[in-house]
């Protein structure tokens, strides 16, 4: 579904991703872990199409097309969803209106029939209950006055509503208490599907206790330096990211000695 090859990305003249390669197949749950400043959020933003990221080398193929050529809205309609690390408050824009406009814009672009307000509200109510969110949220402005936890749950609620093929969660777990973390995990698990893939970017292993990944990758200094199964997350939790760095030094010295 997603094939990232040797991706180099520059932000404000500084190289952040330095040859990142990653393949994700439908039905898979991938976790990306790594220290601060490794380029985790850059990866999420580049995939969603945020401006200000200069791709200097490499390619990203999604469902057989060049993802990097698409506008953010085209990517969304093609099934790419980014749960923001910092969801944006939009005063004056009603949540219901926003969600319906988004869903119908995607449907329209895909050549599907747009939903009327009755059909739309029916779906919304179903999805809200999964995230334990109140109806009242629909009448408020997008993310305005939401607590940190509500914002993150709202991201997952949007994901549930928009039903993407590739969901990227950018540190959705950060700042959540244990109850909110479980709700988010429930929301994600309810969406697991053989046709859907997840890329879960996180700093901590905690979330992965609730969302079991098939693969764990360590992103450090702009590239994937280690990949493994979920046991890798536990090792990282135990030894810290320094452990990876030390092992790399060892690798290099061994390579030098040979």
């Amino acid at each position, binding site marked *: 579904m997603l094939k990232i090859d040797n991706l180099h990305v520059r932000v404000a003249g500084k190289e952040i991703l330095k040859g990142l390669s990653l393949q994700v197949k439908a039905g898979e749950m991938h976790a990306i872990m790594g220290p601060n400043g490794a380029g985790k959020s850059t990866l999420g933003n580049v995939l*969603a*199409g*945020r*401006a200000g990221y200069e791709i200097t080398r490499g390619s990203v193929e999604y469902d057989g097309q060049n993802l990097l050529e698409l*506008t*953010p*809205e085209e*990517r*969304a*309609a093609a099934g790419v*969803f*980014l749960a*923001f690390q910092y*969801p*944006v408050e*939009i*005063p*004056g*824009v009603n949540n219901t209106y*926003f*969600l319906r*406009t*988004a*869903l119908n*814009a*995607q449907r329209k*672009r895909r050549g599907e029939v747009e939903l009327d307000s009755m059909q739309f509200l029916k779906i919304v109510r179903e999805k809200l209950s999964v995230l334990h969110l109140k109806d009242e949220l629909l009448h408020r*402005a*997008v993310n305005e006055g939401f607590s940190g936890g509500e914002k993150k749950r709202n991201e997952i609620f*949007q994901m549930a509503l*928009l039903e993407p093929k590739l969901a990227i969660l950018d540190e959705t777990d950060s700042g959540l208490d244990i109850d909110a973390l479980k709700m988010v995990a429930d929301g994600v698990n309810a969406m697991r599907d053989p046709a859907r893939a997840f890329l879960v970017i996180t700093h901590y292993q905690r979330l992965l206790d609730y969302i079991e990944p098939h693969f764990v990758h360590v992103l450090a200094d702009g590239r994937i330096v280690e990949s493994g199964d979920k046991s890798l997350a536990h090792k990282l939790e135990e030894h810290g990211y320094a452990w990876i760095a030390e092992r790399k030094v060892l690798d290099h010295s061994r390579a030098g000695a040979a």
Partner: protein
Amino acid sequence: MASVLLQSLLDEDALRAADADASSVRRAAACALLRDGLPRPRDEAWKYTGLRALDQRRYANGDAAAATREIDAGVCALPGVDGACLVFVNGFFRTDLSTLPTHEGLTVSCAHDAAPALVREREAESADARADAFVRLNAALAGDGLLVRVGAGVHIDSPLHLVFAGAGGECDVAWQLRAQVELGEGATLRLIEHHVAASANAHLGNLVAHYTLAAGAGLDLLQLQDAAAAAILIRRNDFHVDREATLRLHTLEAGANTMRHDLNVDLAGRGARLLSRGVFTLRGRQHADTHLVVAHSARDTTSNIAWRGVADERARGVFHGAITVAQGADGADAQLSNKNLLLSPLAEIDTQPALEIYADEVKAAHGATVGELDEQALFYLRSRGIPLETARRVLVGAFCNAMFTDIAPPLRAHLETLLAARLPQAGEAA
């Protein structure tokens, strides 16, 4: 260079007519205007609005056929507003199109020759050596006059709808209109000042209105300006707000090619209050210049002002918001905010908040910004599948609509629709 505008309007006939009403006020205003001409760019109050092009244009003084012009009632209609309605076509009061109010305690008179008397009542204003040129023009030429009186203690809940329609003609017309609105002690009134285009026209409209609010009175005024795209509209509203009286003002400036709007509010009595919310949304080569001047003349007066402006393409907006707290007006609370959005690199908005305080105990804050759409918010909407142009419209709409949240729903929806139609790329439906 001689003023083509003034010579075309203040000809011998007009001057004779001004003499004929047995008052020197009108003649004096005309003479002073011919002597001084229109304001020039070095005049601080007109710094951003050049009048040279207007000065060289020729207009007919009033529309001779105003009494019979056909008007589509649809352009005047507002949802939820179906009571008394007074319609003026090219500045001429149309009995046949109007519905006079029947509420006891509310007196309305719209005589075709009422303006001179209203002008005489305020002789000092147009005689002043520093009088505004358009006030003088209005004093010299206004024929029709509107007088609204609400008796003490009378509450008028159903809004009084004033429609000012510009309608086509054989030539470009300049119309002048006077209005005076008086609220007695404890009286309340809802009023809508509605400018509409009944045809594409390049008229010059000049409306001077005086409002007096006696102690404890409450005026709720909605100004909805959607004049013809080629029209020039000059308006001056003077408000005298007495003790414990409240003026609530909502203003939307959407139409006209060039518009100048002076709002002068005197919070004259102790505890007088002003709430002002306004939006201007401009595109093409539209030019809108709003001057809101508030005087806190008494103790414990409050003003709460928030205006927002949007300019697209080559449009230019000006917002001058000046608050003065007079000596002795302690306990005054003055809040002024003006936020603006530029949607095009060729658009321009000039904002000048000004605060002058001569009292000791005052709460005052003012702020003004000119910026572009928030990139983060735009990306957030797009990342959910909302196309760029729709996302821009949604954000600009929200920016403007925030000023009208306390207007009743059917009318608010109408304002939002009107705004949406004015926003960029409105033609490309989502």
